[in-house]
């Protein structure tokens, strides 16, 4: 439904603060320019401190003893030999930290140290602090843990088929953590009107973030009873909450969390982690600073990466390719804990409708507990898997109907300023422009389907795919009516502007965004602004660096704070100069009369005269996203102030004898509303192409599942940098990038998300390109060489040229989803609520 009213926040009948989305490019001094990041020079000089670079006097080193079995009850723990080792200063077990935690209020199912049960190889059981890391490691080897092993739950099918033993005593039933069943519109009618229906089954294997920095935490408990925790976390606010919960009765205001520079996050440092809680407790126990720096293997145990998802998608289209109905099922392998899994489950069904207008939509999602490292949010959180399925399926439909895969997408575009079937509010929408750019740039119309042969006998193919992603989640993780982001500005009489904000720079440049926006509004050099971030003692809350929320939410909060500061200075300067406030211009480090630019003063003088008039100058800004249109249960996942769009064409060269292929060139267009900084936006897009390429070609969280003499071994196959394959400098293709700027009225200067969305089309575009080259389908990610080869072999043998999960009844587990929640679409006159409310078993975690 196209909206009469523009999207955007309305308060008391007045439109929300304007975010200057309609500012003309030529009027902007700093926004859009390739200014270097505020922290760039420190990083290239090697001066940026990461958590493991910190040391404090008398600091202890902590190690965690982790489970060596996949699923077991802990019978006993004997740490007496460890305690006797010289240098050991503290030992913690589960009984010392009895309060559970977890990122979502509905799944507080983790303990810093397992009290009674372990659920995967790598689950921490004992923490030991010693004067040296080697001693702590040796001490861990001296601990005797006796386990009573329980049946391993190895994957989606096994979890669906195993009611007992349960990994957790909460969830829907058995080992089903979540079941969702949402129906928008009239599916029966939608499929009845379809002239072509396809049903396909897809699998997307799990993969992980693999940040270059291994997680590390330093905790210090001072003699005044105050705790400080420096950690590589993307979400200091949530860590703060988790510490306050688990360290009860230590009051929250006695806990300070500093999110120190993250050496890569990608979603992998968004949960409060065992090691963070344990280090804090250990610092309290020993009275000494405690540091833990995880090994690379332990980073794999932390994981929280991409869920393995099995998907079945049934789509109905008219003979011109217009989508009339979509029935989508997803089955998520959640691993051992809840993490963000509830949100992940919904996300596998949320954004299908934001790219293409889906008239009638049915989504069923199931998340299972299994004995794997817990899954969670990785760049694109829950949406890359269904996006892969949908984009490959659309390619197949185009093929079935003899249509151009680009055309079928253009014909189905969701309209701008509209509500989707599942009540997501689309604002600006540049997907059409994205598709046109990559089609033109890649020579799509001329080169597709030509199967050119390279000098070394490889066959060329082109594949196209699209995506959309959030500019931050519309609702907070825990229910509250508070702002999602806050910024405080301090204007010093020296001329210095300091911005305080809880947001966390994980390399994406969020610290710099504060500088660019404030600099633009106040007319001062962004690099002269001091930015103090991610310190719960000093900075107002920002919810964290996840769901691509910082540009829009922190940006808008920064803009509001800067506008307020500008108001104060304007008044002070206007009085001093006797010029109407409205005529004053802030630019080039000056405040001056627009009609007589010589009449004015420096920015620093403006602060001084305003401070003399009004007292110490400080302002605040905050941001809360617009209310969501979706009112049904589950409708909280998916809404966002705005959506970015991406389209990609990928070129592949496939060796038909081996299935080995390379990707020489990618064309990527990304609609980001407006680039706040061109070069940084480019870097985010190129980084997405890289990470998507890795997921498409090679990255996977594979598990070893072997049995010998009644003992079953179930453990991550390859927890190392070498054997978890990620693309090197040699695999990176040429990338032609198009930045599409379609300013969105909900973003600062019209900016939307940048840098998660363009990851998504890479996987389906690679699979589609392989089909274009050699005529076989790989319905599974990673689309690794052996799968291409298997599909080629199948075709050669006269079978379907496809590799993927079974498309038969056995392809997906049998799960009773119960009655669906039925929601009328906007075009059926729906108001965003469900008209039925089925009874469901529901039990929250302890």
């Amino acid at each position: 439904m196209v909206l009469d009213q523009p999207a955007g926040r309305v308060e008391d009948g007045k439109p929300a603060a304007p975010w200057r989305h309609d500012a003309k490019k030529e009027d902007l001094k700093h926004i859009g320019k390739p200014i270097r990041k505020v922290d760039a020079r420190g990083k290239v000089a090697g001066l940026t401190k990461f958590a493991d670079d910190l040391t404090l006097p008398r600091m202890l080193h902590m190690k965690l003893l982790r489970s060596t079995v996949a699923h077991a009850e802990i019978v006993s723990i004997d740490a007496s030999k460890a305690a006797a080792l010289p240098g050991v200063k503290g030992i913690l077990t589960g009984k010392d930290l009895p309060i559970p935690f977890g990122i979502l209020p509905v799944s507080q199912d983790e303990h810093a140290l397992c009290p009674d049960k372990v659920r995967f190889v790598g689950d921490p059981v004992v923490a030991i602090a010693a004067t040296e890391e080697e001693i702590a490691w040796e001490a861990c080897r001296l601990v005797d843990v006796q386990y009573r092993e329980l049946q391993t739950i190895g994957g989606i099918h096994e979890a669906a088929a195993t009611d007992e033993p349960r990994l957790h005593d909460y969830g829907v039933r058995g080992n089903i953590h979540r079941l969702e069943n949402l129906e928008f519109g009239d599916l029966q009618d939608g499929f009845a009107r379809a002239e072509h229906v396809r049903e396909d089954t897809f699998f997307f294997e799990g993969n992980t973030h693999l940040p270059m920095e291994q997680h590390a935490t330093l905790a210090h408990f001072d003699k005044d009873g105050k705790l400080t925790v420096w950690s590589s976390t993307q979400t200091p606010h949530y860590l703060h909450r988790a510490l306050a919960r688990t360290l009860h009765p230590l009051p929250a205001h006695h806990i300070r969390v500093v999110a120190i520079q993250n050496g890569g996050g990608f979603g992998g440092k968004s949960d409060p982690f065992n090691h963070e809680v344990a280090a804090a407790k250990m610092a309290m126990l020993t009275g000494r600073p405690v540091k833990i720096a995880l090994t690379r293997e332990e980073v794999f145990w932390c994981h929280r990466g991409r869920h393995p998802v099995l998907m079945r998608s049934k789509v109905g289209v008219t003979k011109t390719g217009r989508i009339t109905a979509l029935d989508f099922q997803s089955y998520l392998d959640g691993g051992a804990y809840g993490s963000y899994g509830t949100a992940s489950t919904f996300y596998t069904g949320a954004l299908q409708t934001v790219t293409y207008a889906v008239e009638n939509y049915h989504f069923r999602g199931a998340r299972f507990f299994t004995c794997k490292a817990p899954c969670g949010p990785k760049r694109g959180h829950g949406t890359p898997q269904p996006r892969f399925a949908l984009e490959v399926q659309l390619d197949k439909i185009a093929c079935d109907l003899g249509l151009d895969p680009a055309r079928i997408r253009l014909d189905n575009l969701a309209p701008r300023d509209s509500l989707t079937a599942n009540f997501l509010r689309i604002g600006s929408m540049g997907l059409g422009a994205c598709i046109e750019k990559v089609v033109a740039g890649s020579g799509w119309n001329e080169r597709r389907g030509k199967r050119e042969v390279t000098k070394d006998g490889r066959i060329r193919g082109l594949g196209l795919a699209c995506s959309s992603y959030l500019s931050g989640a519309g609702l907070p993780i825990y229910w509250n009516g508070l702002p999602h982001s806050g910024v405080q500005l301090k204007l010093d009489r020296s001329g210095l502007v300091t911005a305080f904000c809880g947001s966390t720079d994980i390399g994406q440049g969020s610290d710099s965004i504060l500088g660019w926006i404030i600099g633009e509004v106040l007319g001062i050099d962004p690099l002269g602004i001091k930015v103090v971030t991610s310190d719960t003692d000093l900075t107002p809350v920002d919810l964290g660096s996840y769901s691509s929320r910082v540009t829009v939410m922190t940006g808008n909060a920064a803009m509001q704070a800067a506008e307020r500061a500008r108001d104060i200075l304007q008044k002070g300067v206007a009085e001093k100069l006797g010029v109407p406030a409205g005529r004053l211009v802030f630019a080039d480090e000056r405040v001056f009369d627009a009609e007589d630019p010589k009449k004015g003063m420096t920015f620093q003088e403006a602060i001084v005269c305003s401070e003399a008039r009004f007292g110490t100058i400080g302002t605040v800004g905050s941001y809360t996203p617009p209310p969501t249109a979706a009112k049904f249960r589950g409708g909280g996942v998916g809404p966002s102030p705005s959506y970015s769009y991406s389209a990609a064409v990928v070129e592949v060269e496939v060796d038909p004898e081996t299935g080995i292929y390379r990707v020489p060139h990618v064309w990527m267009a990304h609609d980001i509303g407006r680039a706040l900084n061109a070069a940084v936006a480019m870097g985010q897009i190129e980084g997405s192409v890289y990470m998507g390429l890795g997921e498409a070609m090679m990255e996977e969280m594979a598990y070893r599942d072997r049995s010998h003499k009644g003992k079953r071994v179930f453990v991550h196959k390859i927890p190392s940098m070498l054997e978890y394959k990620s693309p090197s400098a040699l695999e990176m293709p040429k990338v032609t990038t198009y930045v599409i700027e379609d300013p969105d009225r909900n973003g600062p200067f019209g900016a939307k998300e940048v840098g998660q969305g363009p990851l998504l089309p890479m996987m389906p575009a690679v699979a589609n390109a392989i089909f274009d080259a050699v005529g076989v389908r790989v319905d599974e990610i990673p689309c690794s060489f052996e799968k291409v080869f298997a599909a080629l072999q199948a075709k050669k043998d006269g079978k379907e040229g496809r590799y993927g999960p079974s498309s038969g009844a056995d392809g997906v587990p049998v799960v009773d989803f119960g009655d669906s929640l039925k929601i009328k679409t906007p075009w059926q006159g729906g108001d965003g609520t469900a008209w039925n409310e089925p009874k469901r078993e529901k039990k929250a975690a302890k």
Partner: protein
Amino acid sequence: MSESKKALATFQVNGEPHEVAFAPHKTLLEVLREEMNLTGTKHGCELGECGTCTVQVDGVPILSCLCLAVDAVGKDVRTVEGLAQASELTPLQHCMADLGAAQCGYCTPGVLMAADALLKHNPKPTRDEIKEALAGNLCRCTGYLKIFEAVELAAARMRGEKAEPSKESIHGS
């Protein structure tokens, strides 16, 4: 022979002598970071699989996680902290900073040490030569492209050319 206990030795690091005591099983990575507090050198695996800990020994980029500290005694060790002269960054550091070739910045010191070594013996590297020189440095943020461009730009400037980044690399096509 070095017994397994600590002994004093003097290192030349970034042109300065550092006298430290360490045991022979300590790697150069550990001694740089933990004894000399030169934490600019990072670590990502400690098994030689990621390139994050790259430093130069006698001008050659090597993995400090697999080099015994004792074997670096008497050699010219250079770390990221030693690139800048006084307060002036090298052209390569400037280009890396300006182009956004350092995102999270964690692989950056290793990349810098590998690329700096390349430019010392090859003032005009091709894109393929740059890729090959950095084929042992994993980066998860940038997709490498801004790094390649920064090396090319720095090389041009070090040759005295008035080079600027291309419009495509800053604003897209």
